[in-house]
């Protein structure tokens, strides 16, 4: 069971603003899914290596070379508010 304070804490970590009404709904929905997931506790995983890739690629490397991205202007165009080619945001504190 995930209580309301935990839901608020998680929403804060996830940077999602939620209303009081939503807190209740998330508490119920997340608890239901987490209870159902508990069935994995039945599996003996003591000697199992966790999966980190599903096929055999290991240490994919490439030459440490800089490739210029040619569409810089298109990216700047997407900024909500721009100033001299910079992305302008509100103050942090």
């Amino acid at each position, binding site marked *: 069971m995930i209580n309301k304070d935990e839901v608020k804490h998680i929403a804060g970590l996830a940077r999602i603003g939620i209303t009081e009404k939503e807190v209740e709904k998330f508490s119920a929905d997340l608890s239901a899914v987490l209870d159902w997931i508990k069935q994995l506790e039945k599996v003996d995983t003591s000697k199992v290596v966790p999966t980190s890739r599903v096929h055999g690629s290991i240490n994919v490397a490439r030459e440490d070379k800089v490739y210029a991205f040619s569409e810089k202007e298109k990216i700047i*165009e997407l900024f909500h508010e721009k100033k001299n080619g910079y992305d302008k945001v509100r103050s942090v504190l």
Partner: protein
Amino acid sequence: MIRELHQKLINKEITAEKLALDYLACIEKKDKDFFAYISVTKDLALEQARKVDEKIARGESIELLEGIPGAIKDNLCISGVRTTASSKILDNYVAPYDATVIKKLKENGAVFLGKTNLDEFAMGSSTENSAYGVTKNPYDLTRVSGGSSGGSAAAVALDEAVWALGTDTGGSIRQPASFCGVVGLKPTYGRVSRYGAIAMASSFDQIGPLTKTVEDAAIILSVIAGQDKMDATSAHSSGKDYAKYLTGEIGGMRIGIVKEYIDGLGEKEKKAISEIIETYKKLGAEIKEINLPHIKYSLPVYYIIVPCEVSSNLARFDGIKYGLSIDDEENSGLGENRMPKKLLETYLDSRHYGFGKEVQRRIMLGTYALSSGYYDAYYLRAQKVRTLIREDFEKAFLEVDLILTPITPTAAFKIGEKIEDPLEMYLADIFSITANIVGVPAISVPGTKIETDGHDLPIGFQLMGKWFDEENVLNVAHAYEINK
């Protein structure tokens, strides 16, 4: 289908422009009822088509896919084209670059008719989570087309596109293919570069084709497959022409079936799959029962690891760099309500109003599972069970060449039937998600039709192959298609 249209183009029976216009007319006529497309790229399509016509007029030879119109799921980036992933948070997003699959299709002269509907960020099985509306089933307007690539599947089924691209994280190509009566292929993880696909769960996502025939799927796969420096998980490719493997000869092929999967089906569905197995026996395949003891844990494994990857991947949508930014001086009642607003409020408000409920639910679930103190109990344990499931498949593939299973428990369900209960929606993914957990290639092939409430609804079946063995998956699917 692609091969016949190609012949017509080179015989000058039709021009690429006329072909594109015919499909655009079909979209115009049908799509207001079915809603397969979020946006139609008419100008781009006609420009691409005219280039092909000019080549033909100059007497130059053209590639198989050149001038053939298709649809692109709206979570794949086409430079200069609006790409929404069916989310309000990307409503105004114009992609600044081409996905690798798009680049390859352009190089091969394919024509893009538009961008198709999906569940928001590909999270869902019905397109009911789209911010723009539901794609209706081509066989019954009161039912879903499936998801998340429901728009792509419906577009192909409705002749609103010859072929379409989808993405598949837990069945998002194969399940709508089954519901709409078309072919859907999820390639091996790593077969196709994911660069330019808006990421949902990076260790599961793959791009693949939805088409009318297995041969068309093979043609598209041959074009989009290959290693790419922009995706470090893409695998080395030998540049196969997959259509060349479609002999229809499958004598001696060992096909595994999973008894628990078939036993759990309803009567009509069980009969349908039994007939398919009989067809394969007649064609000379050897049917063997196999045991995959850990697949019963597939759903919980999936619904831990995927939300974890989602919470990380979707952190980039913050109302700052692109997309929706709720940055006004209105007090939204969220967060600490500081006035004037600070950066944190921009994040909280943009992600509150920009994301739909299912997306928020998965971000929250993943954030919880990865948060301090829970990592070992959820994420790490799930990745260990994932290893056990993969080992089950490795053992099974010592005995058999392919595995045949249902792809969906039933034919298409009604709009609204499952949307209120997320867990029930998740449970319907039981047959499709294991292929993504272990990374093997899998195809959904149209089987028979099942009579449901007076409608004959299509339902597919699934073939899963060994890692990077798309040629056998496609050939065995093709053998059924030409002999059913």
